[in-house]
């Protein structure tokens, strides 16, 4: 105990120092370490979250880019398809219209020809009749008698042949 005395060890001083240190420990633990460690942990969590978010955003951006590229691609393909379809349709319509026009023209032409033909026939018939009447009247005047049916026919045929020849020449 001589040593203790030499170093100035006194139980009450020892106790005072122990209590003092425990007070420091308590105060620092409660008001210093706790808020700071919590803050550091919070900040770390916050940073981790930010980084995670950044990754997510980047991923989303990439996905969006891919998606938009895909959409653009699809749109382009669709547009091409539509264009091709439209071209084909237009061609088809044009063809159909051409065909129709051709048909209509042919029909009109045919009708016109038929009409011409029928008119010609009618004219011929009229001509026949007129010629026959004329011949009959002439003969009546010249011969003083009516022609017989056989004569009528041969005369008429002859006259028509002449007329037709003259007309066609």
């Amino acid at each position, binding site marked *: 105990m001589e040593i203790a005395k*030499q170093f100035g060890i*006194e139980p009450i*001083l020892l106790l005072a120092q122990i209590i*003092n240190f425990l007070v420091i*420990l308590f105060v*620092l*633990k409660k008001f210093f*370490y706790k808020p*700071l460690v919590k*803050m550091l942990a919070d900040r770390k969590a916050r940073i981790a979250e930010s980084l995670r978010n950044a990754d997510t955003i980047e991923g989303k951006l990439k996905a969006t880019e891919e998606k938009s590229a895909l959409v653009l691609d699809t749109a382009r393909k669709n547009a091409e398809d539509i264009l091709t379809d439209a071209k084909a349709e237009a061609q088809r319509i044009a063809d159909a219209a051409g065909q129709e026009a051709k048909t209509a023209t042919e029909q009109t032409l045919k009708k016109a020809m038929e009409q011409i033909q029928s008119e010609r026939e009618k004219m011929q018939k009229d001509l026949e009749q007129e010629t026959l009447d004329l011949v009959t009247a002439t003969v009546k005047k010249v011969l003083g008698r009516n022609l017989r049916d056989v004569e009528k026919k041969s005369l008429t045929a002859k006259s028509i042949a002449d007329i037709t020849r003259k007309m066609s020449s």
Partner: protein
Amino acid sequence: MEGHITLAAEKLFSIGPLPITNTILTTWLVTAVMVSFAFVATRKVALVPNSIQNFAEFAVESLHDLVESVAGTKTAVFFPIIASFFFFIIVGNYLGLLPGFGTIGVHQGSKFVPLFRSINSDLNTTLALALVSVIATHYLAIKYLGLGGYLKKWFSLNPIFLFVGIIELAGEFTKVVSLSFRLFGNIFAGETALTTVSKLFAFIVPIPFMLLEIIVGFVQALVFAMLTLVFMVILTQKHEH
């Protein structure tokens, strides 16, 4: 001025049964400084720290990482104790280097008594710290291992292990002595060296010693804290044979 530095802290006055030595007074000063700093630094804890909070965070985070690298999952329990040892010792050591320590004092009769004395140059302080360290270590060992597991660390039916265990138990008392005398010895020696050198020539010459004391003050605080940490980690681990 003979005996400017005495081994024992000098008594200034008494409050009731408590004798107030100059180290007790300095301890209160250190406590006041630390508590004030703690309050100022954490008054408004913000995600974006101001400069004081930044410094406090730097100190706490560095030490916290160090403790975590050794203690792992027990960090939350060990850290406040380790950090308090470190901060208390380093603030005490550095405060003791300030001018006025050991030089401002009163005359008691023919004896000069300094008003302030570096806290760790009094064995009462370092012994108190060592006792707290060792008792806390054993308390935590019982907490983590249970009383049975704790006792199994020291006592065994195997005579060899029983012998080893009893030697280790004796080693626990040695811890108190080594922790307290290492810190006391270093700081007291530093004080003595500074005083002696200052007596020889008070200007310029003490500066290298001052720088040395700054390093010693940091190293001793770290050594005390780290030893306590290692003792805690070892003692709270399950004993395996």
